[in-house]
């Protein structure tokens, strides 16, 4: 890329990792390969951040919060926390503060709690798959994203937070606003502001009401929770709500869309999955690995770090490309770029590693498992997707589809 630095002078500028490069957004994997092979510690001079792309380097960085801190935010931008104007969230904290808050929210994700969600999720999926079939019977083309991939996680997040069905109409647009802004990591701040305001008002009122009359939803549990004798403020709880909405929505939607694309590209493996649903759980880990929906998140160094002959100075933003580590042949072997639903997967990076491991991972896995089980048993191979008319999300930070036209055969 060439930029005009002044009226006369031109500076040659060619970062390998430029999140605004349309070619990288369209297909990041050749860029990731070059980073891994030639520049395992890459410095983007214009935006002033470092990039890690090899599996081992990212794995170690994520498991060393003493050195790679989350407290300065999770994007390559240096001043993101002050720009966002959002409540404090535990994803932007380090141990031990992070651990105390995380322990509270894990109560919403115990095995029993997650298991209790299964019937609701299954009924929702069945209803939406059957609705797609009915539309198809009328000859209508359906957008898989709008029909099921997007509403499913929105329903689950609303359910966990305790948003009653009659309020979902209000909730969905805020959820969309926050999700789409966070999908681009607050690069378009304005988009999120209205949504944040709506959310703050709604959940602020809900906190007050749950403090007075607790139910069994997550917000009630948080209003009752104590850490070292202190209770959480409404503002703390709003931070939790924000994380749930930003982290729980599009991620699952994108995972569903990406998985469908890979099954289209590997029809033999799709048939295998349909014939033997017991393969679904491992296939989900492989879908997560091969196309990380969150392509990467950043940390900030607390001390100088020497890596591959480069010194990353203290106070630097370091962007960890999970999606690149997940395809690093040094860890996954020569077929790292290929889908293999039988692959033995030890630890992929898509839910991160270390203290910030995705708190909703088990719910996400359950949602997509039920999706595949019900799609498999109710529709099987009897559908066609027009991938030429599908639309991808235009972001270097998240990867997925915004539209997938599907026709279901009678």
């Amino acid at each position, binding site marked *: 890329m060439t930029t005009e630095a002044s009226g006369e002078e031109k500076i040659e500028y060619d970062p390998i990792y430029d999140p605004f490069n349309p070619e990288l957004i369209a297909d990041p994997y050749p860029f990731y390969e070059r980073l891994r092979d030639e520049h395992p510690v890459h410095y983007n001079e214009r935006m002033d951040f470092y990039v890690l792309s090899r599996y081992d380097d990212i794995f170690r960085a994520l498991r060393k919060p*003493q050195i790679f801190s989350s407290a300065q935010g999770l994007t390559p931008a240096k001043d993101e926390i002050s720009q966002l104007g959002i409540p404090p969230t535990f994803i932007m904290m380090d141990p031990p503060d992070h*651990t*105390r808050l995380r322990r509270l929210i894990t109560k919403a994700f*115990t095995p029993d709690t997650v298991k209790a969600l299964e019937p609701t999720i299954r009924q929702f999926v069945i209803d939406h798959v059957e609705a797609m079939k009915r539309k198809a019977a009328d000859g209508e083309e359906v957008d898989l994203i709008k029909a099921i991939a997007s509403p499913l996680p929105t329903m689950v997040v609303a359910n966990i937070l305790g948003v009653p069905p009659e309020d979902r109409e209000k909730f969905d647009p805020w959820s969309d606003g926050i999700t789409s802004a966070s999908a681009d990591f607050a690069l378009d701040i304005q988009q999120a502001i209205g949504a944040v305001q709506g959310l703050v008002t709604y959940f602020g009122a809900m906190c007050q009401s749950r403090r007075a009359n607790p139910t069994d939803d997550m917000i009630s549990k948080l209003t009752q929770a104590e850490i070292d004798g202190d209770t959480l403020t409404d503002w703390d709880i709003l931070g939790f709500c924000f994380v749930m909405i930003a982290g729980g929505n599009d991620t699952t939607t994108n995972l569903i869309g990406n998985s469908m694309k890979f099954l289209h590209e590997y029809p033999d493996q799709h048939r295998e999955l349909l014939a033997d649903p017991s393969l679904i759980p491992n296939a989900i880990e492989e879908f997560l690995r091969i196309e990380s929906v969150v392509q990467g998140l950043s940390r900030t160094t607390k001390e100088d770090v020497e890596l591959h002959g480069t010194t990353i100075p203290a106070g630097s933003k370091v962007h960890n490309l999970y999606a690149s580590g997940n395809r690093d042949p040094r860890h996954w072997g020569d077929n790292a770029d290929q889908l293999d639903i039988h692959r033995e997967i030890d630890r992929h990076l898509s839910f991160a590693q270390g203290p910030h491991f995705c708190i909703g991972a088990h719910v996400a896995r359950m949602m997509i498992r039920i999706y595949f089980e019900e799609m498999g048993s109710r529709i099987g191979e009897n559908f066609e997707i027009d991938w030429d008319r599908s639309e991808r999300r235009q972001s270097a930070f998240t990867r997925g589809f915004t539209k997938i036209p599907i026709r279901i055969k009678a």
Partner: protein
Amino acid sequence: MSMIRVRFEPSGLEVDAEPGEAIMDITDANPAADVPYSCRAATCGTCRVEVVEGVDALSTADEVELEVLDIFGDSPDRVRLCCQTKLVGGAVAQVTLKVCDD
């Protein structure tokens, strides 16, 4: 095989278990133990417990677990991850595990 009594704090729940049993299986079967988990795979450190007594009745921490304990400045003779720890046979009849404060 002699049973081992496992006490969880601060909940106060006590469970008799056999050597070989995983602590996570015990707590899954007894939610009243009130041990918080998240990743359930030795990465997040949410299920850290202080070993108040009975460290010799616990399996040895492997490298993956040690790495997580190191994040929090813990040593395996004092703190363990419930998701990684199993009971082992021996002379110890009582284990007490206390959920870490931070």
